[in-house]
Structure formats: structure tokens, C-alpha cells
């Protein structure tokens, strides 16, 4: 990010950037991605303690002596790594959009 080079100080600059089309686009794309994924991972995460506390469904065998509780626990790791990589990929696009905002912000001065 070339942020250090742009020289934006006054409040009105921030307001004009905040209302610019480029910035609004960045925000709405971020929201569309971050809000649903955050809701998903909280649900997935709390499903494990809720299921282990209020049912015995996860005590059934998956393979040999390994029960579904351990499988679900391991899936939490897979989910975390997977969503980490997904975020990195999406964030590359957010960086592009943010750069556009920064460039246009510079022009406005």
C-alpha cells in the first residue's frame, strides 16, 4: 500500500473518501464476504460444544474406535486453515480496491 505517500489530513478529505464510489464498493464487497463467513464459523464452532453437551449423537463410531466427536473436532482445524486461505485470496482483491481508493483520494487534493 502506498498510503504513506498520500497526504491526507483534514476531516473533509476522509469524509469525501468515505462517500466516494470506490470506497463504498470496497466496503460492500468486504461486508458481503466477512459477515456471512463470520456467522458460519461461529455456528460451526459452537455446534461442537452444543452437540456434545446436549446430545450423544457424536459418540457414535466413525471408524474403528474413532467417534464423530473427534472427526468434528478435527474438522474445526480444517475449517480454520481453509478459511484462512480463503481470506488471503479474497484479501488480494480487497487490496486492489483499497489501492483504487488511495489513488483517487490522492487526486482529490
Amino acid at each position, binding site marked *: *500500500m502506498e*498510503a*504513506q505517500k*498520500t497526504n*491526507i*489530513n483534514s*476531516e473533509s478529505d*476522509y*469524509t469525501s*473518501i*468515505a*462517500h466516494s464510489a470506490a*470506497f463504498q464498493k*470496497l*466496503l460492500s464487497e*468486504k461486508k458481503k464476504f*466477512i459477515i456471512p*463467513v*463470520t456467522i458460519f*464459523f*461461529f455456528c460451526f*464452532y*459452537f455446534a*461442537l*460444544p*452444543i452437540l*456434545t*453437551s*446436549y446430545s450423544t449423537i*457424536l*459418540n457414535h463410531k466413525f*471408524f*474403528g*474406535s*474413532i*467417534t464423530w*466427536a*473427534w472427526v468434528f*473436532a*478435527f474438522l*474445526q*482445524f480444517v*475449517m*480454520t*486453515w481453509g*478459511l*484462512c*486461505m480463503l*481470506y*488471503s485470496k479474497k*484479501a488480494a482483491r480487497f*487490496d486492489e480496491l*483499497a489501492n483504487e*481508493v*488511495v489513488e483517487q*483520494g490522492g487526486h482529490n487534493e
Partner: protein
Amino acid sequence: MNTPAFIMFLGIVLVTLVITYYASKKTKNASEFYTAGGGLTGWQNGMAIAGDYMSAASFLGIAGAVALTGFDGFFYSIGFLVAYLVVLYLVAEPLRNLGKYTFADMIAARFDAKKIRGFAAMNTVAISIFYMIAQLVGAGALIKLLLGLNYTTSVLIVGVLMTVYVIFGGMHATSWVQIIKAILLMGGTFLISIIVLAKFNWSITEMFDQMKTATPLKESFLNPGVKYKIGLDTISLNMGLVLGTAGLPHILVRFFTVKDAKTARSSVVYATWIIGIFYVMTIFLGFGAAAFVGNSEIVAANPAGNMAAPLLAKAIGGDMLFAFISAVAFATILAVVAGLVLTAASAFAHDFYNEILRKGKASEKQQVSMARWAAIGVSIISIILALGAQTLNVAFLVSLAFAVAASANLPVIIYTIYWKRFNTTGAVWAMVVGLISAVGLVLISPNVFSPEAGKAIFVGNPIFPYTTPGIVSIPLGFIAGYLGTIFSSQKADVKKFEEVLVKSNTGIGIKG
């Protein structure tokens, strides 16, 4: 005295002091002292985050918890890892873009009010000291067992080392001690895991089969519900685990050691891989200890199971592996306490002294010198408290730190970044209510009151039924922030929020 262990402990002390010597040459100004000049790369900071995070409570505590309670112990591993999604998705990048040296800087980027900075700094110091007492008590017990030194001497050794790293080497020394510790811890844990797996004929299914008969719990070892029998207690624990990390000041300051949000992001990704692989391996540590050391021997060494990992190393690899793993545990404690001292000292010197007392006008030299004195002060307070806390359960102090972080810090962080109407009254309410409810509920919880003598600090019936306060205190923190905001007569400063929104999303105006 265990000679190989003594030599390896000495080796770690020497290596870390050499690092500190080189780091001290670079530590010339406040920025170098607090954040290593913001010059760490993504992988360096990722390793340092991992080194800062995988504390003695993780390494010794979770291995013991899995060994003694099976699946229920593994809840900690899951929660501690998934917590990084909260950090990555909601906190890391805005934090880097808004803050400079401390977590309070970020709140101050939106609200230029001294009392808010003061409360944020106070929470930072409180959380860091709770956390540090836990690590020091663990360190004292470990060194006492391994080297035969008494508890007071052991705590003093760790206390002096952590102070030396921080006052001479600042964030440079702290970061490199954490990076080296992360490598040692991953190496040691991997070695044990491989040997354990070999002993089960390289078969995960055989390992699970054998665990059904290896412990006094028999088949229920593999099922949830051994330790956490009350549903809401389990959920409360998990809430604290998953939401606490994103409010822990010593983790948050690590994001100021990189140059921009992009590097902050990549450091979380590296950290998540390292931490995740480590927590998967806690299964092998726990199962291995239960199978090859045995329940009674683990409990005999320490009722909470804290010696399970070193005892496992001895059982499967003899004295050399035992010495190595013990030295790794020692390095683990040093790296974590150094990070905590630095964080608490930054809150004193940067927030209280420079920003509040001197109105941001202290010279670089004054700032660094105040930070060094603050580090000495924080260390002395922690050492004194740790000496008095020898008999306290360390896991309880760590869970308290997580609960305060999730209840008092996280609501303010989230509202500051994302909520337009949020104001100073809401921020103060959230921090005060979060802190008081988390600490207050712990004081009336089963950790402090137990009907059975010797199980807790006092004999009596706990008023609050759950072992962790999260399920009540975290929502209270968020609700207090909300109510404080809407009942206050202050108008929302939309312009300031727009500035924060632009800065946090684009990095414009970033302070390097």
C-alpha cells in the same frame, strides 16, 4: 540435579542473552523498543505470534488435560485455534491500520479522551499481570522439579531473565526469543508425536483402540463429558476461548511490529498454520502420556496434570529427551513472560506516562527510559504476586485473563471499528462492566468456592455455578457498550467514524 537438563537450560539462557545483546544495539528509540520499528516480515511475526501464544498453559496444561480427561481437554486446543479466525477476519488489519504502539492507541484513534486511554491501559496491565502470574507459578514448579531449586529461586531466575530481555532488547529481543522458542517447541512436540505414533504401530486407529483400555476412564476417555458435565459451563468455556484471543493485549501488540495490514494478515496466516499443527499434536502428547506414563504417575507429579508432557518424554526417550523437553518448556515460559512484561510496560510508559501525563510530548529518550523503568516495575509486582500464588491453580488464572480480554476488550474493539454510533460513554461502560463482571464472577465461582476442603481457595458453595464467566460477562460487556452509548447525551461523531472507517480499511494515514 538432572545434568543434561541443567546444561540445556544454561544453553537456552546463553542463546537468549546473546540475542538480547544484539537486539540492544538496535533498540535506540521508542518505536524500536515497543514494536521493533515495525520491521518484522510476515513469517517472522507469524512465528513470534505462535511463540507468544503457545504458553506453558498450552504446552504443559493441555497435554495434561487431554491425558487426564480425554476429549474434554481437547476443547482448549480447538478454541485456542479457531480464535484466530476472529483475529484474522475482524481485528488484525483494522488494528494495524489504526494503532501505533498499544491496543489503547487504536481506541484513541477514534476517541481522543484520556479516560478511555486510561481504562484501556488499565485493562492491558490487569490482563497481562494475571497471565504472567500463571506463567511464573508454572515456571517455578517446573524448575523446582527439574533442577531441584526451591520455588522462590526458580521464580526469581525467570523474573530476572524476562526483565533483562525487555529492558535491554525491547521488542527486538522479545520477538526473536519467541521465534526461537516456537521452533524449539514445534521440534520437540513433533519428535514426541512421531515416537508416540511409532509406539502405536503408526496407526491412528490402533491408538484410539488402545486408549479405551489405557486409562481408568476406560471408554468414556474418548467421549466428551468427563470434565464438563454442565452444558452451559462447556459453552461458557468455549466462548471465552474463541473470543478471548482477539482481546489479549500481548497478542494485539504483535500486529504493530509489521509495516502494514497486508503483512499483519500474512503473519496471522503463518501463525494459524503453526499453532494449528501444534494443537493437533497435543492429541499425541495427551494420549501418549495417558498410555505410557499412566494416570496415577501423572497425578502424583502434579494433580492438574502439568507434568504430563515432560514425563512422557522421559518414558519414551529417556533422560536426554526429558531434558530437552523440559528445556523447551523453560524457553516457552521465558518467551511468553517477556512478551507480557513488554506489553504491560508499554501500557504504562506509552499510554499513562507519555500520552496522559506528558500529553504526547515526552522525548524519545524519556519514553524509552520510562518504558525500561516500567518493565522493571511490572516484573517486580508480578514476581511478588507469583511468590504469594504458589498454590493457586494456574489454569484458573489463564482462563481469567482470557475472560477479561473477551469481556472488557473485545466489545470495545469491535464497536470502535464497526459501529457508527459508538461513543466514549459506551466505551467506558463496556470496559468497566466487562472487567468487573469477569473478575467478580470468577471470585464467586467454583474455582474459588468449593464445598470440599482443599479443592478451591475457600470452603463453601459457589454462588456462580460455572467455572468460567464468559457466558455472562462477555454479553454483559457488549450490552454495557450498547446501553452506555444509547443512553448518553453525546451525539455520534460521524466524521470521526468516517475517518476511522477509511483508515482501517485502506491504511491511509498509517503511522509507521
